[in-house]
């Protein structure tokens, strides 16, 4: 290993750290934007229908909090977009033909809608008609949701690349089928799971803040009305999160079995696989149900995926190539690609055709050619395992709390249920923990792949020094942390200082 390589592999780690940092911070703000937009939309619709000034004031209060949170979400988002170029330059060329499109569509279709109508929403109360204002509030939320659609299409494509083909002439993957990319089942499901989790975040935020008011005996009317809307949205979205989460499990088992095995800490799999609640506590058969909707379904473990495995399904034996075998095939693909390029430069048509034929045969394993050791294919199991449990645990707990709050407010006994009000307040950190943990499962779980089976992170990065990335990492860390502290303090002051009565 030369000194240059050491420096670069540190550069890789810093680039990953920087991307993870930006993504984690971004996902602190975005779900609240998505969720509050929905709650505000519903509240303003009630105002529009009833003309009751109380609902206008209530909408405006949540809108103020929305505004404080929105700006920093935008700020962290722009960096994510540009980081694909700055830190993952090989990636940008290798798949830019597919990946760039959703980002551009996001800008043209979604961001402008959001930016335009948010201005009307904030500044238009006394300037435009009630109808136009209501439309603007919904369009702001729609813009945010559309932008989530396109960025999640991009992300799902990295998890499960479809609709493209590698072209050795141009040295990149090229889009073959736009609709396969834009509406792949993985993208649809990812969008539904992520956006509904955002709705849940917004709902929990509204409910939590309102519970705090009730505990303090302040702004009671507004708090109760907000809980009515918030808890309803919360229960519905929590159920949707659960349902789409189940779909995610099936999809993960199909497309990214390694991620599922890591999330379960499952080294050796088999039929009727047990689900581990925490280490040492297992429920037989449940993992198979989650992964295949069949108690006898086969779930491979990390070692099975490395070595290769076979199982029976519908009376047929299905054999899956092991990662080691794919790595060998990948090396052949990489060599054939090299030969193809060399013979093309020498204008040796015969050699070029031969290399192309070999390449086409091994193309599916091309990405594996970059993997040095088979063990590199196993993501950090502990982190993924525990994140998965935090996500599911917090999510389930939140569903129970939200149902409890919804039920008690329906019976008109919410103010007396002090314990439930405390639980409502404390569900705010829970919902954030669940959201962050979910993304850790999704992103850490697919390591070492930047794009599943196609491009590992070590082949995706830019030629910049570790020092440079380290510097920008700490600059962003400092800026985001200070701005987050500032945001939280401003939000708390705005909540404490609000007097609705």
């Amino acid at each position, binding site marked *: 290993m030369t000194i240059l390589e050491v420096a670069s592999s540190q550069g890789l780690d810093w680039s990953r750290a920087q991307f993870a940092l930006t993504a984690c911070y971004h996902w602190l703000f975005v779900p609240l934007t998505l969720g509050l937009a929905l709650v505000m939309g519903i509240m303003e619709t009630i105002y529009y229908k009833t003309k009751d000034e109380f609902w206008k004031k209530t909408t405006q209060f949540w809108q103020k909090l929305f505004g404080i949170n929105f700006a*920093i979400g935008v700020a962290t988002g722009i960096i994510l977009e540009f980081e694909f170029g700055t830190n993952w330059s090989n990636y940008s*060329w290798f798949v830019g033909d597919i990946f*760039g499109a959703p980002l551009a569509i996001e800008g*043209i279709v979604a961001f402008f809608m959001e930016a*335009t109508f948010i*201005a009307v929403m904030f500044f238009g109360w*006394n300037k435009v008609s009630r109808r136009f204002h209501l439309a603007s509030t919904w369009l702001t939320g729609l813009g945010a949701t559309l932008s989530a659609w396109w960025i999640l299409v991009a992300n799902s494509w990295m998890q499960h690349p479809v609709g493209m083909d590698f072209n050795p002439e141009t040295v990149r993957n090229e889009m073959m089928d736009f609709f396969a990319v834009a509406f792949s089942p993985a993208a649809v499901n990812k969008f539904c799971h992520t956006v509904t989790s955002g709705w849940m975040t917004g709902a929990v935020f509204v409910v939590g803040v309102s519970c705090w008011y009730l505990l303090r005996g302040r702004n009671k009317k507004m708090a109760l009305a907000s809980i009515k809307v918030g808890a309803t949205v919360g229960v519905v979205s929590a159920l949707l999160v659960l349902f789409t989460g189940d779909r995610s499990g099936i999809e993960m088992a199909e497309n990214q079995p390694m991620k599922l095995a890591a999330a379960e800490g499952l080294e050796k799999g088999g039929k009727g696989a047990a689900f581990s609640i925490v280490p040492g506590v297992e429920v037989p058969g449940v993992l198979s149900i989650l992964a295949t909707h069949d108690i006898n379904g086969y779930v491979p473990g990390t070692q099975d995926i490395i070595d290769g495995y076979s199982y029976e399904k519908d009376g047929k034996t299905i054999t899956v190539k092991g990662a080691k075998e794919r790595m060998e095939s990948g090396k052949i693909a990489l060599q054939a690609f*090299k030969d193809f390029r060399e013979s093309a430069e020498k204008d040796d048509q015969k050699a070029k055709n031969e290399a192309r034929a070999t390449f086409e045969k091994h193309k599916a394993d091309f990405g594996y050619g970059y993997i040095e050791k088979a063990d590199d294919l196993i993501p950090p199991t502990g982190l993924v395992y525990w994140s998965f449990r935090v996500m599911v645990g917090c999510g389930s707990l939140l569903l129970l709390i939200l149902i409890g709050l919804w039920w008690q407010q329906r019976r008109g006994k919410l103010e007396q249920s002090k314990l439930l009000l405390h639980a409502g307040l404390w569900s705010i950190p829970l919902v954030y923990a669940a959201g962050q943990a979910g993304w850790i499962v999704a992103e850490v779980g697919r390591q070492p792949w930047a794009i599943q089976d196609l491009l590992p992170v070590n082949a995706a990065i830019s030629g910049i020094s570790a020092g440079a990335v380290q510097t920008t990492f700490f600059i962003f860390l400092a800026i985001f942390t200070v701005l987050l502290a500032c945001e939280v303090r*401003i*939000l708390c002051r705005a909540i404490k200082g609000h007097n609705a009565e």
Partner: protein
Amino acid sequence: MITYTFLQQYWWFIVSLLAGILVFLMFVQGANSLIFRLGQNEAERELVVNATGRKWEFTFTTLVTFGGAFFAAFPLFYSTSFGGAYWVWMAILVTFVLQAVSYEYQSKDGNFLGKNFFRRTLVLNGFAGPFLVGAAVATFFTGSDFCVEKNAISEAGLIVPAISTWGTAWHGLEALANPWNIVLGMAVVFLSRTLGGLYLLNQINDDQLRPRCRRQVISDAIPFLIFFLAFVGYLLCKDGFAVDEYGTVSLVGHKYLTNLLEMPVTLGIFLVGVVLVLLGIIRPILNEKFTRGIWPAGIGTILTVLSLFLVAGLNQTAYYPSVTNLQSSLTLSNSCSSEFTLTVMAWVSLFIPFVLAYIAHAWHAIDKKEITKEELKDAHHKY
């Protein structure tokens, strides 16, 4: 006939148009750089901040969309320039990030950094944003220090080498050593300040601020014209990076002048643009009642920047030249997406007129009333 070449040129046109709109919308940055200069007391500074605060998201979104469109249409530029001129792009990002939160946070209770901290970040972004964007765009003509080797990705290893590599560890900062990059950077700074002054003049109805805005426009327009004309003069005289039908890049004398002369429509756009900018500056100076100079100057800016981008990329020109290795220079055809992707994106681009229409509608609805001190007092959402 819609050919692959046509699609490449069409997308270069869209990217160029977005660049033009971005430079126009940087009136937000220009006006922000004047917060303390024009606003001599708190009430006046508030007027300036609130006037730009209702528009900043358009600038920001255009920057993001400009990046996205470049990525989708010319991914090799995205990977080469962003990954190479790392420090320049990072600096641009940092100042825009700070700007994004500055409005919302500055006057809110609980802001422990203080109002002036966020005003200063607005000023910082007001200078640094236009300057860095201008200097980066200048490298489209002056060239950068990079190599592109697509075969690099055939090397397995602990770390696979990058396809695009930068020649110096300065990663973009070396561009500041070329005085012509600085000249264009300064031209954009003073242009955005001029536009900022014109925007405030139109937007804010205040007896003290209006004459001050007018004077400010004069004192920014003069350095703008000097820097701009110097750069245009340099551009018309300098050698350019031509690409022949086999994709070979070579230096050709007076290439950009030739481009203008060989593309009369582009020349026309350029001349109309320059005249409109001058008109937008001069009319409000001569006529005390005229406050709408931002419109001719703004449209003129869009047209001028559009034409300069067209000169950089059309008529067989390498738009992102490498001075280290001429053959690594990026041209429309060697850096673009596949024909299929460009076609899909061409369909998407049909949304653009629709987007512009609703922006115009919403903008008009918000701007029906001018901003005054009284209007701000009653404003529901105020920075």
